[in-house]
């Protein structure tokens, strides 16, 4: 009886995991494999594997676009904006989660509101702000705008994370004579490390993939980001499905590589933080 139950639960667990992996990976594998087929093969043999590894579509796409610059731009802008945003929202979420004070609900509601303000309606005032700051067509403009993007999301996640820290811990520290800052930095920050990492990844990805403001606030090749480059692809390569798939692959792969690299860091930081205790 117990054995059947165990087997059933294992079957369930691995079915769900297999399904998750399939829906997440399969479309991408399909795109990558299609990029090595000819136009005709794509149209007539959707299941066939590519017959040869022909990199010429990649060479073509690469020689026409300066990917290194776009990738570096995206990386720089997303990382800087994420780090600053994380610092700012870690502070705000802490007091929102742990203290009662005048205006607390108001602040929380206002910060949450930011999640609901549609990006397109903000465009006009933000564009005018950036122009007045003389930041048009600079990376700093995007960093400033992206700083504001993850506000509600990260305050949400971090607030929830701080709330899981038992109040007894702060009380004990308080009795020991710890200061406000020490209770925050020595007790809470280490305990919410995984929350910080989660919020950080989410904000980074949002910044990494942002198109609309990148289109609006930059104009030269020197400041162009990867998502904007994709905007150029769609009109350039759409005649030829092979090149289209190759271009898509080129846009997708750096994201996956960067994520995989960061992923290892994340595993380490989560493991070393000793969150579980």
């Amino acid at each position, binding site marked *: 009886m117990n054995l059947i139950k165990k087997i059933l639960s294992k079957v369930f667990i691995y079915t769900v995991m297999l399904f998750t992996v399939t829906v997440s990976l399969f479309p991408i594998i399909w795109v990558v494999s299609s990029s090595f087929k*000819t*136009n*005709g093969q794509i*149209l007539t043999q959707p299941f066939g594997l590519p017959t040869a590894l022909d990199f010429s579509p990649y060479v073509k796409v690469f020689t*026409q676009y300066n990917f290194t610059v776009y990738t570096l731009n995206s990386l720089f802008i997303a990382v800087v904006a994420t780090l*600053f945003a994380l*610092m*700012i929202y870690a*502070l705000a979420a802490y007091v929102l989660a742990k203290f009662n004070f005048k205006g607390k609900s108001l602040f929380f509601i206002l910060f949450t509101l930011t999640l609901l303000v549609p990006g397109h309606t903000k*465009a*006009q005032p933000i*564009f*005018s*702000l950036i*122009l*007045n*700051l*003389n930041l*048009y*067509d600079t990376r700093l403009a995007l960093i*400033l705008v992206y*700083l504001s993007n993850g506000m509600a999301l990260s305050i949400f996640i971090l607030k929830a994370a701080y709330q899981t820290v038992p109040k007894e811990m702060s009380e004990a520290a308080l009795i020991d004579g710890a*200061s406000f*800052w020490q209770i925050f*930095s020595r007790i809470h920050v280490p305990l919410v490390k995984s929350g910080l990492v989660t919020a950080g990844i989410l904000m980074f990805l949002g910044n990494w993939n942002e198109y609309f403001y990148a*289109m*609006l606030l930059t*104009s*030269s*090749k020197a400041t162009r980001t990867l998502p*904007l480059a994709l*905007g*150029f692809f*769609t*009109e*350039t*390569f*759409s*005649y*030829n*499905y092979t090149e289209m798939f190759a271009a898509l692959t080129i846009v997708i792969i750096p994201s996956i590589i960067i994520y995989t690299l960061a992923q290892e860091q994340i595993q380490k930081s989560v493991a070393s933080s000793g969150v579980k205790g």
Partner: protein
Amino acid sequence: MKKILTVALIILLCASILIGCTETTDNSDPTQTKEKATETKKEATEKPAEPVEEIVITIPHYKSGQNVGGVFFLPQVERFNEMYDGKYELVIEEIPQDSYQTKIQQLAQQGKLPALIEGADKNWFEDIAIPNDMYYDLSTWLDENPELKARTLVDSLGYNTIDGKVVAFPLTVVRPIGLFYNNELFTPSKPIGELSMDELLAEFGDNKFAFMTVENAWTTSLMLTAIFAQQDGGPEILKEGVLNQKSDYTSKPFIDAFTIIQNLLQNYASSNTVGAAYADAANSFMSQSAAIIANGPWMVGDFAAESSDKWSNGFTGEMATGGVYPGNIAIANTFSYNWWIPSGLPEGETEAALAFLAFMNTPEELEAYMLAEGGTAPNLTPSDEYVTALSEKRLLSELSLAVNSDTIIIPMILDIMPGSVANEEFGKLLPKLIDGSVTPEEFATILSDKAVAALAE
């Protein structure tokens, strides 16, 4: 100790954000583009150390990078820069075609328009740009250059003249839009222009049209226009509607045209029609999946040997033959706004922009343009070189021969609809017309309702 450090850090953080924002007051120089321009100029002039100040204008444009329009436009800009070396320089910044109008409208709201802009949404231009005097009046300049003015089309000049002011540079070249057919898949008994639609379908057999439904359903809308123009009263509605947009599409010529196009879409359309964007339609034609594609003369570039990487399944450019629509119909709209210059530019930039407009419309440049992208310049006496060069271009000569004095030239049906109906609603509703979930009458009613809403105050 550590506490003080943290307080300092937080203050610094706030300060850096604040400084970023209060900078507004001391740094709000309205001539930011100029600054940028002078900056670039310094770099440019550093090398030769010339005493004369070169005026550099930087404009965003989609005819750049790998965009099809860039094939002719970018070298043209190069020729301009060469000709005015040391005096003017035009720098093009790439922007995706889809985002061009959004960006221009946003820049306009901030009063930071670039020195040259191509085209404008009709409603935006008429409701915002013109009433707010955003344009530079070209009338004086055109009067000072009578030769140039004589090259412009009378209709277009009239349309672009508002209260005696010329708001945008009128057209000098008209490019009647017809169709291309695959002469190996399909051999009409007479030139297609001399056939009727029914005769064409009778000869068409199992062949297909390269139709599409995405965006403004361009190739489909062109064919619909040609069909509509053959209905009683159709051409009149089109000619009137291009000046005053229509919001009622429920009259007989519309319903009849919708019924015919429904039949074509259901029985004579390439298999990828539903959900096809322009590139997909072009792909159908250039892979022999479709025998006819409605499109303008600029498509000849795709049939030249340099574009052979777009061909597949045995297609070659030799297989394409150009023509007009059944019933001897071609499509062209001379009532539109094209290149314009914003008001309030520094004098030098205005001069540079004007110089470029003049340059684009010199006889040599116009002929080069027509040899590359097709069209005719009615007010220009062709040079001998041009005539010879044209005769060597099979497709372009076919197209110019197909358009004769009897050809009925009418504006496109989308030009009589409000922008959102033409660019969004029409294409979005087509799949329902195709799968039969709306009848042509319902199709007309739904579109009319959308148009009424779009035009309402």
